């Protein structure tokens, strides 16, 4: 297999297989969660579930003071990583083209120098997150294989993308193929790991808010 053949596979069948596993996995898991249902609450409702639930989905984005004090490194590093990752993913011209091909519309891209800076930022933040995880005694105790695996497979697309953009080591078709394959790997493990938080995060926040809303207390 030549490098161009690998690239063609990664752009075609490879991406298709990864998409099927990703979409099917995520949808099945979400349906499963939703259909679990909740026990009927026999207490009288003292407020609205819906408004409190929706509000909490947004308000929980900002950590409260006590939480921030307790785990400031985790929170700061988490924010820097996520912002860097989203900017890199959503505003790099070739990525926008990919998305446009998928959903039919796109948006203006940011200059590559800006993207470059954000990519570096997210890579550094992700490294810091690992260091924090391994140096903090409690976190290290809680760390299992899945945490390391998801960290590694999240790092790969960022790193391979950065290297592909700067063309270090291999020729461009190989670098692009490696980047695509790393993304496909991430898509494949996505539904079966804690990466599912991308979707369940909002379900969980809504649920927390809704419970408080029903009881008529602040969320």
């Amino acid at each position: 297999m030549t490098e161009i053949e690998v690239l063609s596979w990664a752009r075609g069948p490879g991406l298709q297989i990864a998409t099927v596993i990703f979409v099917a996995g995520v949808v099945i898991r979400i349906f499963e969660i939703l259909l679990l249902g909740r026990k009927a609450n026999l207490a009288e409702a003292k407020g609205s579930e819906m408004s409190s639930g929706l509000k909490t989905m947004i308000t929980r984005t900002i950590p409260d003071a006590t939480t921030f004090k307790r785990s400031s490194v985790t929170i700061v590093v988490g924010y820097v990583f996520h912002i860097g990752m989203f900017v890199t993913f959503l505003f790099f011209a070739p990525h926008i083209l990919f998305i446009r091909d998928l959903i039919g519309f796109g948006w203006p891209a940011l200059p590559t120098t800006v993207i470059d800076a954000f990519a570096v930022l997210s890579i550094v933040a992700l490294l810091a997150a690992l260091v924090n995880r391994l140096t903090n005694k409690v976190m290290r105790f809680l760390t299992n294989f899945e945490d390391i695996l998801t960290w590694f497979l999240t790092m790969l697309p960022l790193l391979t993308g950065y290297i592909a953009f700067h063309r270090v080591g291999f020729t461009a078709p190989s670098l692009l193929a490696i980047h695509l394959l790393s993304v496909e790997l991430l898509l494949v493990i996505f539904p079966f790991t804690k990466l599912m938080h991308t979707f369940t995060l909002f379900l969980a926040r809504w649920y927390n808010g809704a419970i408080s809303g029903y009881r008529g207390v602040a969320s």
Partner: protein
Amino acid sequence: MTKDLSLKNGAPEEETLEIGTPEKGTLGEALRSQGVSRRSFMKFCATTASMMALPPSMIPSIARALEKARRPSVIWLSFQECTGCTESLTRAHTSTIESLIFDSISLDYHHTLQAAAGHGAEAAREAAMEENYGNYLLVVDGSIPLANAGYSTIAGISNLDMLNEAAKGAAAIIAVGTCATYGGIPHANPNPTGAVSVNEIIKDKPIINVPGCPPIPVVITGVLAHYLTFGSIPELDHIGRPKAFYGQSIHDRCYRRPFYDKGQFAETFDDEGAKKGWCLFKLGCKGPTTYNACATTKWNNGTSFPIESGHPCIGCSEPDFWDGGGFYKALSMPTADLSQTAVYAAAGAAAAGVAIGLMNRSKKNTSNKIHVTTTIEDLKK
């Protein structure tokens, strides 16, 4: 034209360089008889040296070696091809030294260019192979069909047999064009003739790949000049291409690169971006994954190259460029219809999700039903 150049400056360059009248039958003599001045010859040597990233101190050695080089016998075999490569190499716009070097080789067999036909032509090939056994250069353009020998024959000899026979006595092989180097168009999916490249058949000879559809003329003369100067083949990359010419990607040397970095793209062939000469990435440019000298050497005597004319690079010097998912599909776009795949996957998964959810529920209900409440009385027993 070339003679005028030497007279303009008037300097007796031949004396200053201490190279006398070229010997008979050498490349130097052939060039001189064509009216190539010393100055333009040295200029060519300097260009060749710089293209191959050689130090300037090598220029006199290149000149000396080229002057004294015997005209090498070249046998040119054309298999499953379109003659575009020959067109590219022979139809130089004006008479350049590159083309004269090409003209100066002893092209003993080329069934498109030679005057002889039929048995006479084949006899010329056999004679050249015999006389120069072990020393001739073999140039091949076109792919070789393996599915059925009858798909492509010359004088009743299959391409495979002719290549094997001619390769035996060759000093080196130059595969010209993407068909000979990587299979090219005949090799494109579904490859009905079972077409393969030269290096898939010949394993025991040095092969220089000069891909492109067609390749740039100066690249082949550069390779010839290198061979004549050093008697060896130039440094090659991992897919057999001379690094001097295929060392950098089109994207990295493209004059439109700043627009890519700024995020300014032509969206269609006639929009404002296209008129302003913005980056053609969104229109399918394969420049980022293509290694060739177009952006620096350019075409038609340095006039321009495709991107300069407003068309994206199609990646013709890379293997399987016909199967790359379409010339106008951006490199970062998936080649398969992903949205359709996603919709089908989601629909199927939704059904499966509901089924699994309902199964979970019935399991919960069943356990609720068979659940027996334990009372204080039970515990007292």
